[in-house]
């Protein structure tokens, strides 16, 4: 466990100093800051527009950070030869991979906490909501954090055998399918009118691809009509899903990385 923690903390230290990530983070915070002043221009409910835009910025920025942060992790260590000094110590390859993943997740957590704090603070200042409503707003970033953990696992998995550029497009693609297209495929899979081939493809996509859309838990402010029947059960399900799916990807990554020539 000690090597894993040492690698994870070093990864966090490096991640929070990477200029490109800090620039993305800064832009994210900047966008969040200007949203309250733009929301007054919309004809829709000011509160729902403000929060849905803030969520979109938070989610997009976090996804970009998660991808940029993780796709270079393993290739950079190989290119700079730091991996050789680490693996020549009593460190197993799987420990190295898990340490890197944990570091990425911790760094992502810190960045999401920072952006969420700005978001909640601005929402409180401009809308002065009730404590219950504020809590509902503050809850969503936690689900985005789980989503980003899952995305980081996807990127780390691909980084064990692809170049950063290929990894970037693969990860973006999978995230896109899992967020935008997943609800569409779900409806096709459950639609008895669709052709059997389409249904099989849709079932495969919804079953095998990580379901990132699970983590966009619609806020009652934005979608008053949408109700999750058993909220507690749903939340346990998506937490377990993120942990188990990430673990599965890491194990697959470990198997590939263990055989890889570095």
């Amino acid at each position: 466990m000690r090597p894993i923690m040492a690698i994870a903390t070093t990864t966090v230290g490096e991640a929070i100093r990477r200029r490109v990530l800090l620039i993305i983070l800064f832009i994210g915070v900047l966008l969040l800051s200007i949203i309250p002043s733009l929301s007054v221009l919309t004809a829709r409910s000011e509160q729902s527009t403000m929060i849905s835009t803030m969520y979109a910025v938070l989610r997009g920025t976090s996804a970009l950070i998660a991808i940029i942060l993780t796709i270079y992790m393993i290739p950079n260590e190989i290119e700079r030869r730091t991996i050789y000094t680490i693996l020549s110590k009593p460190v197993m390859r799987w420990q190295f991979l898990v340490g890197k993943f944990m570091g990425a997740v911790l760094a992502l957590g810190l960045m999401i906490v920072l952006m969420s704090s700005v978001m909640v603070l601005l929402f409180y200042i401009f809308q002065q909501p009730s404590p219950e409503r504020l809590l509902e707003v503050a809850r969503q970033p936690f689900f985005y954090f789980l989503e980003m953990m899952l995305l980081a696992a996807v990127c780390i998995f691909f980084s064990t055998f692809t170049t950063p550029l290929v990894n970037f497009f693969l990860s973006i693609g999978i995230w896109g399918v899992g967020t935008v297209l997943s609800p569409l495929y779900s409806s096709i899979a459950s639609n008895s009118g669709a052709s059997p081939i389409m249904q099989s493809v849709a079932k495969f996509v919804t079953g095998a691809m990580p379901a990132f859309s699970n983590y966009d838990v619609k806020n009652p402010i934005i979608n008053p009509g949408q109700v999750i029947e058993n909220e507690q059960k749903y939340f346990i399900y998506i937490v377990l899903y993120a942990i188990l799916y990430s673990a599965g990807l890491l194990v697959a990554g470990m198997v590939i990385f263990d055989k890889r020539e570095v």
Partner: protein
Amino acid sequence: MAAAIETRKLTKTYKSRLHGLINVVQDLDLTVEEGEIFGFLGPNGAGKTTTIKMLLGIIYPTGGEGFVLGKEIGDMDVHRIISYLPERPYYYEHMTGLEILRFYGALFGIKDEALFNQLLERVNLAADKSKTISQFSKGMQQRIGLAQSLLNDPKLLFLDEPTGGLDPIAHIEIRDLILKFRDEGRTVFISSHELSEVERICDRVAIINKGIIVSQGKLDDLLSGGRIEIIADDVSKEIADQIKGTADATVSFHEGRLIVDMSDEQDPNSVVDSIRSTKGRIISLTPRRKRLEDLFIETVRDDDASKKKPAAVAAEAGGAQ
């Protein structure tokens, strides 16, 4: 004395789409004794780093076997008592020297602050311990690399080009440290291009060319069979030609002085007698040990030539048909 490293027919083959199978290291038989400084030499791309990586268990051999400190390569127990300093190492730039040692120490489960400070003292970085790696010179980075490689009090150190790109002062500092490692009873395996450096510190060497060991042994044995240089004044051209004809020697004139370079297996007295017989004046007679550089170039060239010959013969045979 037990072997610190032993390989038997260790082989690494890569598959290439363009060139088919490429033997980067082929049938490597290597023995490094405990407590010695062993030089592993070879031109670029000869397979030195690949061999080190195999011995460290970072890449996997495709054939043969290897043992490090009596255990099969890749054994995690061995990683607790060995150490590695890669060529041009990179360390996390945001960290200070002390933080680097804390990080690598944590990989062993070492949290001994006194040890970290002691190691920084040892590599003359105590005064710079709060500087970040980005503020370190190349020499300082190499020294912090050596400090991290001593964290676990290793029995065997692998040093890949430890003095590459360093200034003369840093060279001397690193060389002195390596010599101290041997005095402390550690085994040091050095891969290097700095032949004069290797000649000064190594007990034994192996020369690898195109993945195959072409020469291996004690430095004293390999460099025996040296040369003798005779410098003389007032020697006529005729006598010089006569010496050239009788002795297997290189004869030249420099600023009017005759310079004879001959193998120490030949008798220098006959050359001296020839010079003195015509009133020539002997200025110096100097026995010179063969230099490692000469041995290296000779060995690699001979090996390249012997590999070209069969190919040329085959090409000629093909052409004749």
